[in-house]
């Protein structure tokens, strides 16, 4: 479902936009060439950009102009990128932020490995999959 405002009585009609393909949490989406990650996702009706690091609550854009950092996500393996300021690029890999382990709450260890062994194990698993 697209949520584009194609025709506008004062700003005119959008025409002949080149599309760009990117992935968000493993799923493929299309946006326009001048889209930010935030606008491309919203145009695809995707609102949740990250989960709150401690509570896991869903979060989306708030200010849309770079001030609030609510829209942080991981782009091509670089974390804490603001989705509202970053233009999409062909084959860009975007991931939502995850719940992080909480040292004060033993029930909330998050998805990160706890020991080096665990890390190495998972890493080996990853490579096997990719091979």
């Amino acid at each position, binding site marked *: 479902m697209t*949520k584009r405002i194609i025709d506008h009585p004062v*700003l005119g009609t959008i025409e002949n936009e080149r599309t760009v393909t990117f992935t968000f949490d493993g799923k493929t989406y299309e946006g326009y060439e*001048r889209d930010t990650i935030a606008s491309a996702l919203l145009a695809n009706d995707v609102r949740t950009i990250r989960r709150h690091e401690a509570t896991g609550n869903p979060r989306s854009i*708030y200010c849309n102009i770079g001030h609030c950092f609510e829209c942080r996500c991981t782009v091509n393996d670089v974390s804490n990128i603001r989705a509202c300021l970053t233009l999409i690029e062909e084959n860009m890999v975007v991931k939502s932020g995850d719940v992080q382990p909480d040292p004060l709450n033993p029930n909330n260890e998050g998805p990160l490995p706890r020991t080096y062994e665990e890390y190495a194990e998972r890493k080996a698993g990853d490579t096997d999959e990719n091979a």
Partner: protein
Amino acid sequence: MKMHDVVIIGAGPAGLSAAIQCRTYDLSVVVIDEFPKAGGRLLGQLHEEPNGEWWNGIKESNLLIEEAENLKTDIRLGVSVHHVERLENHYVVHTNTEHVAAKTVLIATGAAESAAPIPGWTLPGVMSIGAAQVMTNVHRVSVGEKGIVVGVNVLSAAIARELQLAGVDLHSMALPATNVVSEDQSNPRAVMERLVRIAHLAPSKFIQFGSKFATFEFVRNIALNFYPKDGIKMWDMPIHLRKAIKEINGTDRVESVTMVDVTPDGDIIRNTERTIEVDFVCIAGGLYPLGELAAVVGCPFEYNEALGGHVPIHNEAMETPIDGVYVAGNITGIESAKVAREQGKVAGLSIVKALTDNAEVAEKVDAAITNVQQTRDEATIQFHPEINEGRATISASFEQLIK
């Protein structure tokens, strides 16, 4: 590291028009902005002026960008500044990608929106009114099927109209319900007072909205006591000053809001809760100057309500008490883009004056200062009724400081 004449932080109307002046006199200029397109908050603006013409921010931005590009201005987009370092006789601007050195720095970072938090405001689908403006007019993506605007002020009324124009459906505009952080945004008397004093300077339909309450306090009190249940309509959209949003509801995204009736003083009337289905909420808490970078470099600040909050102390020539540091645009006080653009011109010329010995420039600075005041007097959108007093106070503080 190459030494530039000036680094301009912010490619909004203030930064761009300063860059144009500096490049006209062939200074070496670097403009830095973290947004992917130049134009700043001007990009999203779309107002119908009282004469019926449209103020189209994208067009206005493009005019400035074109002029700057014709002068071969170095504009670096998608770059964030996080520190300005003051060294012996120059400055180093730290960004996420590089360090840029210059003899002078112009900080034209504009404004940010104040939050008016209400329970549920972190749900996806809740955003600031400015976020909706940019999504609608710049990115051309609809923020939802049906929404509500929380917070009634000149900016939210203007943007509500912009959403309507783009075919986005709004239930109404209402106040945020009183809570520990809401301050006078939740007080119908304060909100109406501000609307009435500013209405004659706002976009056309707003004038009629404001004039419904007249300027006499007793008329306003009567108007608030007998405020229509269905709100007062502007462009067919109800504006409620006696209803407030107490809570935003939903599990993974906005599903509804809880609306309550409030007294003329903003107190919640019991047992008036009702649920209104919406899929997005725009929160409008007003604007404040974005001054952090001026603070980091050591500019003294003053709290000045008419200017929108804490502003770096500066004079009419856009100089700060710190040699080589200039400010322009909304960082100096919340006003329209036209004023920001004229202030940018002043700042650009002041920098040229400081770095070259061109006798004609001093006169040009004075003429540009006169222009700022004239633009202010003719402004069709104004954010605070006491803007002139606010400007006078800050200039006086500057004189006091450098004495």
